[in-house]
């Protein structure tokens, strides 16, 4: 009757409620019954409303993808910190060395989560911001602030390869 | 010598000064897009200011208010962007 993924989403929402409202306190051992009941009702409503958005029916090997995503996040955080110093340098320099341009490239990613992760990563690492994404061909339209940042995306393609490795879409989705 | 309350006061004053800097762009910016971007920046600064004020007055309730305001600011910016792109909010 109820699928496994729906129960998983309900448990995640209920744990979120418990963490926000502190109704179960493991150290002192007392719990608040009214808030637990209200929390279960609210988690059920939130699950039924957002179930169609989160479960697309094309999920497989989710556990491995989640583990690879957890390994990808520290690398990305280090890139963000490193390259934010670059933007601070460009802002505070008296001559302001910028040379903006708009570039366009194709990738091999096709699913929603993969495109969103790559678009967010491009927007967070300084030098580039995503303007538009086309899901059919994986085409990204990107505004770059200097030629060094644009080359890192066009020529090296480090970030696309890492995201494709996380979501296992390495050789094209067609 | 000095306590942690002084640190949070310094943080609050710096954020207030930054908000004043952004107000110039919100008033002057040629065109409506610069003004929307400046208002979005002021909104995200207010979130951090609320957390700092919560530490100054020693009331942990301000973090919940900051969480709510973060959601409101995000939805407001998205609705403004959709209206500026299409000319309408809901196509019903």
């Amino acid at each position, binding site marked *: 009757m109820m699928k496994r993924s729906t129960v998983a989403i309900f448990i995640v929402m209920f744990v979120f409620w418990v963490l926000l409202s502190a109704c179960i306190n493991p150290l002192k051992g007392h719990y608040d019954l009214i808030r637990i009941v209200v929390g279960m009702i609210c988690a059920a409503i939130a699950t039924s409303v957002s179930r169609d958005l989160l479960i697309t029916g094309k999920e497989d090997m989710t556990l491995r993808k989640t583990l690879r995503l957890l390994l990808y996040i520290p690398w990305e955080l280090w890139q963000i910190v490193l390259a934010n110093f670059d933007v601070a340098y460009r*802002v505070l320099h008296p001559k302001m060395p910028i040379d903006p341009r708009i570039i366009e490239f194709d990738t091999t990613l096709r699913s929603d989560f993969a495109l969103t992760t790559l678009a967010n990563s491009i927007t967070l690492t300084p030098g580039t911001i995503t303007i538009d994404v086309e899901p059919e061909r994986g085409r990204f339209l990107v505004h770059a602030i200097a030629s060094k940042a644009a080359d890192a995306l066009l020529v090296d393609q480090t970030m696309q390869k890492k995201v494709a490795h996380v979501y296992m879409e390495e050789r094209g989705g067609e | 010598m000095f306590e942690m309350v002084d640190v949070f006061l310094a*943080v609050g004053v710096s954020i207030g000064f930054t908000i004043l800097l952004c107000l110039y*762009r919100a008033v002057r910016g040629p065109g409506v897009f610069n003004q929307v*971007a400046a208002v*979005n*920046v002021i909104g995200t*600064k207010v979130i951090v200011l609320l957390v700092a004020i919560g*530490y100054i007055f020693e009331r942990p309730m301000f973090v919940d208010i900051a969480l709510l305001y973060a959601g409101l600011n995000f939805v407001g910016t998205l609705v403004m962007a959709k209206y500026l792109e299409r000319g309408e909010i809901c196509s019903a």
Partner: protein
Amino acid sequence: MLGIGVTDIISIIFMAGGIFFMVTGAVGLLRFPDFYTRLHATGKCDTLGEVLVITGCMIFQGWSFVSVKLFFLMFFIFMANPVGTHAIMKAAYYTGLKPWKKGEERR
């Protein structure tokens, strides 16, 4: 002697770094010559500055329910700010705002 410990010094360092990035983001909003480049300055420096300040507050607090709420707030800002920046940049691009090339005048 001073009344503050090692944890407090680490959180002060994080908060100072965060404030530096936030002020840089606001200065970039004033200095850059075009709308698209201004979004570069705020969408990135702002987000990182806020993440650093809230991490400093989390380290100061220790393990309690308040720091879990602060972690959720930091995660939400980390995800939501780039999405808002991208939405408004896409709206400006498809309404016809022209980007700035090197050598033109300020707008």
